[in-house]
């Protein structure tokens, strides 16, 4: 059994043993081990992928939320703005209306004053006329208290009638 001469017996055993070992290990050890590792790697990869997906979904959701929030905020702003405008408009309208009403009231008052004034003037005129008649009556009565003067007036009146 020398160092550099292959010994047939050992070669024979090595070959047989190794060949059998390869097949036995392949069937009963390597196949389940590599299969198990493969499955595990696959499941890890799947888990990672689904986690990634979930993360993305989450991000989308977050983005959606942000969008919604933004929209809501914008809507709020818009509503507030509308409300403010409406308020101002209402105030402005109310002012105008009040003005118009006031104007109308003033106008009516003016008209009523005018009317009252005219009525007062008319009454005054009547009063003045009545007073004038009463004064004239008193003057006439005083004038007619003397006989001469009565005749004079009759004459004059008669004159006026004939003229007519």
């Amino acid at each position, binding site marked *: 059994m020398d160092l550099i001469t292959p010994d047939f017996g050992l070669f024979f055993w090595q070959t047989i*043993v190794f060949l059998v070992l390869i097949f036995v290990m392949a069937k009963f050890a390597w196949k389940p081990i590599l299969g198990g590792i493969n499955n595990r790697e696959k499941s890890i990869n799947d888990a990672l992928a689904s986690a990634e997906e979930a993360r993305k979904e989450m991000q989308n959701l977050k983005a959606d939320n942000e969008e919604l929030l933004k929209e809501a905020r914008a809507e709020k702003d818009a509503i507030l703005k509308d409300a403010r405008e409406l308020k101002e408009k209402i105030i402005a309208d109310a002012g105008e209306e009040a003005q118009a009403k006031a104007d109308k009231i003033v106008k009516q008052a003016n008209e009523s004053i005018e009317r009252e004034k005219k009525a007062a003037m008319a009454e005054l005129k009547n009063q003045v006329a009545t007073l004038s008649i009463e004064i004239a009556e008193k003057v006439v009565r005083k004038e007619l208290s003397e006989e001469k003067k009565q005749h004079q007036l009759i004459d004059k009146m008669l004159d006026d009638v004939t003229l007519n």
Partner: protein
Amino acid sequence: MQPNLEPIILSRTGTMIAHKSFKIIVTLTLAFVLLPFFAFASANKVAEESEEKEFNPTDMIMHHIGDSHGWHFFGSGDNSVTLPLPVILWTDNGLVSFMSSEFHHDTEGHHIVEKDGQRFVNYHEDIYQLEEGVEAVEFDEEHHPLNASKPLDLSVTKNVAAMFLTVILMIWFFFGLASFHKKKAHAPKGFNNALEALVLFVRDEIARPQIGEKKYMKFMPFLLTVFFFIWITNLMGLLPGAANVTGNIAVTVSLGLFTLVLILVNGSKDYWKHTFWMPGIPTWVKPILAIVEGAGIFIKPIALMIRLFANITAGHIIILSLIGLIFILESHGVAGISVPFALFITILELLVAFLQAFIFTILSALFIGMAVEEHEHH
């Protein structure tokens, strides 16, 4: 067995040369590292004592890194503690088997075991079948047995037994992990988790990058088995008293052949085309390149088998040499230096054990990847 004789002769002469270089290596290490410290104590002793009591470091090292028919733990001769292993021989009269303990620790060819009317001796861990009436095996000058033949030795040797141990460990470890995976879907804990990390290492660092996403799964059983087989065997080989399985050329030849067969069987059309008729170069270069590439197909696995064998064996030799120094110099003091050195090398070997398993696997994957690759047309 006639066909086996020629390589034996070659290797015998090769071993002779190897023996000399071992001595030179050991002596040089000694000269550089230890002599300055122990010159007084040892120089004379070695000269005197080497004659009376021979300690041959080469034999010791070769014994430790080589294969044997029994699993020897400690002690020597009849006092040694040895696990007997079955000796299985294919002789001209069919299968013969007996336990290695029947040799009674004899490796010098003295003790003859008789079985079914055939007689066997163990000479330096080679089993020889003696001819009729012969009492001891004799060799000619080239270590050719003169009066014995060498039956086909299919014994469960120390290396085979150690290989079985690795197989048992692998089955124990990975069947456990497999049953966990069958039961539960989550990641394992503790030892199973460590094993799974290594499986993933082979898959993600070796198979996927070298072979490609599409085809790597087909070669995973081979790559995983070869990686863990080499690594566990390497580590087991570092234990005291353990066998040097992956540092045995027969084992690495077998492993290299597996890679070669996978390349040959799975080579794509493109691969063969690129090997034997490389497109895009001048026609007269093509045959030259075909020869180079054709040789490359075989050189690749040969490089694999030599690399693993040489690295593991070298590590064992260094450790054994360092320990052997204590006995060469016959001085306890040497242990103060060679033991820490040996410890350091052993720790280094732990790294080498992983590294060589990794390199063998990744290069196998690379070669397979090159073979199965579909080239895009230039």
